[in-house]
């Protein structure tokens, strides 16, 4: 059996009196693993613990066989893409990535070359010399991915990497993550959207209220998820045109407009996302700026799982 990339043994984390993670014992195998849970479930705490930003209040955890808290050498083998949309806005993407990889002890010339490769692998080479402050949301997400992969790590830890991306950006990033895994790297990726995780891996950790509810094959909970309508917020340049198209479709349960967004409920999310991506790619429906999905539907599934 292959050596796990992450092992936690009764790990808990408290923020004062508040529990962020409660007695978590998991063993994550190599490959892609999805961490799935609604906002506030403990995903971010889990991510911060396994990237050494926080120290467990109780229990032990090892990443790639080593303790992570106060172990900077481990970051040669680990790349992390955080959730927050935070950057050195005045720097260009290339400068930023090169400056970060120089922290790995890489010389200036090699750092620039590595930064260029990383920017190319996330399709940002054409804007590499533009200030990050001028990047679109999707570009900002991708430049975060670039800084995570620039030093060619064995394990990538990605916190909500698809959040706010347009459909084409999502498809491209999912493809990229799968490609990294095919190259023998391991990936732990968090999301609150099952379909995102499912498009990358079948191996999931289901987290809620600071506890791991289930781990294993995504298909086991897939049927449960499908019983609940999935809500999607679409910010687009021409939402009415999109709405017209979707009104005629059987997989759309309801459709409404909210300020700046078209809100769609669908019973078949996979088919919906596939057709939306095709529509955007056709260029006939204007620009889709971002897609977001609230936690409501996933939360309903969790309630159902906890009850059962």
């Amino acid at each position: 059996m292959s050596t796990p990339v992450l092992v936690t043994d009764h790990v808990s984390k408290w923020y004062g009196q508040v529990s962020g993670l409660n007695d978590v014992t998991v063993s994550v195998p190599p490959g892609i693993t999805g961490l799935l849970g609604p906002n506030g479930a403990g995903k971010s705490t889990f991510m911060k613990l396994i990237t050494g930003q926080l120290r467990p209040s109780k229990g032990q955890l090892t990443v790639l066989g080593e303790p992570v808290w106060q172990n900077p050498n481990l970051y040669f083998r680990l790349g992390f893409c955080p959730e927050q949309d935070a950057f050195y806005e005045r720097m260009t993407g290339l400068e930023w990535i090169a400056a970060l990889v120089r922290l790995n002890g890489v010389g200036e010339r090699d750092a620039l070359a590595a930064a260029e490769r990383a920017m190319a692998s996330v399709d940002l080479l054409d804007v590499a010399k533009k200030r990050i402050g001028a990047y679109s949301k999707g570009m900002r997400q991708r430049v975060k991915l670039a800084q995570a992969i620039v030093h060619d790590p064995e394990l990538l830890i990605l916190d909500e990497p698809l959040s706010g991306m347009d459909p084409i950006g999502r498809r491209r990033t999912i493809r990229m993550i799968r490609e990294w895994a095919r190259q023998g790297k391991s990936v732990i990726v968090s999301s609150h959207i099952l379909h995102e995780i499912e498009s990358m891996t079948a191996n999931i950790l289901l987290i809620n209220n600071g506890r791991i509810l289930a781990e294993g094959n995504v298909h086991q909970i897939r049927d449960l998820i499908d019983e609940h309508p999935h809500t999607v917020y679409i910010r687009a340049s021409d939402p009415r045109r999109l709405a017209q198209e979707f009104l005629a479709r059987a997989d759309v349960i309801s459709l409404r407009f909210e300020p700046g967004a078209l809100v769609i409920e669908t019973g078949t999310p996979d088919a919906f996302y596939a057709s939306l991506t095709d529509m955007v790619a056709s260029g006939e429906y204007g620009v889709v700026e971002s897609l977001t999905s609230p936690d409501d539907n996933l939360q309903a599934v969790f309630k159902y799982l906890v009850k059962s």
Partner: protein
Amino acid sequence: MTSTRRSRSPGTAYAALRVFDLSLGGMLWSRRTVFMALVVGLPVVLSLVLRALAELGGPVPRFRGDATGPTVFGLMIWAFFVRFSVPVLAVFYGTSLIADEVEDKTITYLFVRPISRESVLLGKYLAYLVSTIFVVLPAVVLVWLLIVPIGGSLGASVFDLSKDLAVIAAGLAVYGAVFALVGATVRRPLVVGLVFVFGWEVVALAMPGSFRMMTVAYYMQGLIPHAMPTGSALDIISRVFTETPTLATSVVGMSVIAVGALVLAARAVARREYVLDQ
């Protein structure tokens, strides 16, 4: 193809310099630099007014006693820079070395690289030092150029100017280290820092006994190269100098404070868990 793979963390000095590279631009172009320019701009504007009045033959305020341009310059160095601009800038910058990155949520990128957290603090501190020196020292030179020629000679006071610049740079270094420690360890560092500068240091310097040895200002007194003017209000200020440490005591005292504060601050940063708001 060049490899980016390494297995051992780069040394603290190398890592600190890389963090310095990454931080300097952001620090120089931050809103704090505007604040810093305002703080050091005040004596420049005052000097400009005095010089303009002198040049135009207007009602220039007469300096009393033996006070000439160089002496007034020395007084401005003490009152405006050493006792005000330097500690104030150090409070605002020093307490926020790590806090700014935490507030901007960019600290994550530094903490998930194979460098020690101590080197992050050290690199940020170096960036603070260079950016404040870059703004403050030119202001001192401007004040010198404007004030000293009023009854004095620039050539004769060049050596004193170079010592003043060194004292101010040393002040920025020591106060910056102290407030880096404050920023790394207490909940309301700005308030604590301001109380230290405008409360504790003022009171402790005026108190008899050894309390004054627990201030930075006390050690800086021993480095000030100027003789203070005599007469009226200036006398009151000059009394501060009645008990000054020797140069050696000052240098040793300031070095111990700076190094000790930086070491403690670095340890605090290394052990602290930073929880960023989502």
